[in-house]
């Protein structure tokens, strides 16, 4: 027994160490990485391929209620409507048509309804060289002034195309001018962008959330809490998406509005 007096002690300490290790590895909480914070989902309505506006032609195709577009419900046949201009030669929009904002052309160049509408027959359009154009053929009217854009549209470079690129496989859906451009104010309106990308590392995400500030001069629309992320809808409402803990059914963002009526309507839907 005297030649190896330390062996039983060493073995005993080793056993204790192994038992401690077993216990600590079994209680794994300290080893597990932090669970990832769920990233807010984007509303599927915002990624639908619908056009920016619903044109008269689309309404006809949808067989929607066109009673608003019956010109001779109010106007008299064979009596061209008269236009009124104010002191600085700007067109005065009559009160029945106040939903129209005339902004076609810079410096008020296109300041006359009958540049495009036919005053003798209000259900038709007219070009500057006297041709009459049906509403369904309105691209020809637009192209009579915007030639290069019309040529590009015919070739496919301008405007939206959807559906099938392979003609044999299905229908190619081309949009006409007024499906995107309001003919009275054709400039494409600005929109709110969808959320920027989230960095992969949680530490970077945290820093990004805290630094989520608008550039100089732009109003800060939300004070951003750490765990929220503003989901911006393209109709300018700002909502903050907060996340319930993910369950087997998937992530369900609960939208709460910050007071905008549009957001409240969206949250109700």
């Amino acid at each position, binding site marked *: 027994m005297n030649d190896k007096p330390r062996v039983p002690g060493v*073995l*005993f300490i*080793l*056993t204790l160490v*192994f*038992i401690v*290790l*077993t216990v*600590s*590895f079994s209680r*794994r909480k300290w*080893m597990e990485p932090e669970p990832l*914070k*769920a*990233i807010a*989902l*984007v509303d*599927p309505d*915002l*990624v*639908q*391929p619908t*056009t*920016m506006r619903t044109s008269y032609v689309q309404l006809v195709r949808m067989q929607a209620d066109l009673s608003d577009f019956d010109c001779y419900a109010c106007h008299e046949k064979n009596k061209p409507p008269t236009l009124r201009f104010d002191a600085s030669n700007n067109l005065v929009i009559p009160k029945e048509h106040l939903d129209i904002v005339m902004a076609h052309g810079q410096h008020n160049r296109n300041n006359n309804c009958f540049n495009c509408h036919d005053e003798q027959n209000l259900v038709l359009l007219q070009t500057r060289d006297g041709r009459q154009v049906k509403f369904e053929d309105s691209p020809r009217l637009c192209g009579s002034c915007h030639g*290069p854009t019309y040529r*590009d549209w015919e*070739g*496919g*470079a301008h405007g*939206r*195309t*959807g*559906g*099938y*690129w392979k003609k044999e*496989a*299905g229908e190619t859906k081309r*949009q006409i001018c007024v499906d*995107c451009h309001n003919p009275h104010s054709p400039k*494409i309106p*600005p*929109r*709110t*962008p*969808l*959320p*920027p*990308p989230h960095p*992969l590392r949680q530490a970077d995400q945290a820093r*990004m959330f805290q630094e989520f500030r*608008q*550039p100089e001069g*732009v*109003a800060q*629309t939300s004070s951003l809490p750490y765990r929220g992320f503003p989901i*911006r809808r*393209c109709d300018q409402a700002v909502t903050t998406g907060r996340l319930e803990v993910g369950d087997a059914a*998937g*992530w*369900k963002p609960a939208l709460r509005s910050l007071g905008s009526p549009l957001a409240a309507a969206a949250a109700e839907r």
Partner: protein
Amino acid sequence: MIPQKPHPNWKAGQNAGMTRRSFLRGSAVFASGLAALAASLSPLRELDDFPSVEQFAQKYYKELTPAEMAKVLKRIEDEVERQYGLRPHVKDLKPADGVEFVYALNLTRCVGCRKCVHACVAENNQSRTPEIQYIRVLRLPHGSLDLEKAEHDYHPESVPEKGYFYMPVQCQQCKNPPCVKVCPVHATWQETDGITVIDYDWCIGCRYCEAACPYWARRFNFAKPSVPKDRLNLNMAYLGNRPRPRGVMEKCHFCLQRTRAGRYPACVEVCPVGARKFGNILDPNSEVAYILRTKRVFIQLKEELGTSPRFFYYFDV
């Protein structure tokens, strides 16, 4: 102690050998050591994305017969049904003859709304947490294409912002792809219609392709991708948008579940201003053929690297 006769095997001068006490001590250490080893390996119990035997023994994609491919597709459909509770339709779409896809993007039109990014995410079953997005929209100041000045984190009240233009970047489906060259297992290759595809069951996750790509087009699944059940796109393709496992690469594949069936990719359809154009360059009547014929200034990103991308950015009037 009563002196006893020594054991016949005992030799003079030797130690006592193994006694019960030493055996018990040794076995106590051994057993606790084994327990510690087992406990340290216990995270392996939580491995749930272990490949099945069929998946592990699957042959290389290009060697699969149609019958074997049908079995593979069924296996994937079963797996997706088990995980999400919904049964998808997984197809293996082959490239058509006489088709080479080209993408044209009009930088005058892009407003930076990022609808393409999220339409792509929805169409291709990309992970929401952690986030994977094949398309990255860069905001650049007017006047140069200096990518050092690019900002991908822009979040203004409204776009487009004055003084900037927007350039979305995704896989450029290069004619001379560096990612294909570096893959050690040939899990990624370019098909005859121009799409560089990845076989998610063959990829080993080494990420060489991610390092080789100059456009950061390739994304890696660091964690098991999480797609909400109600957002799952059930129209899937084997090389396309079927749900990926953890540890494999993925990237834009021109929505091949759509384009090889003759439809436009999701990003083209959703772009609200019509900045994105897609089609078969071998067809002289296609939109992209018209654009490449008539437009004057084209940009291929980082063309000095010789990747020869199939993605043409152009400006318009």
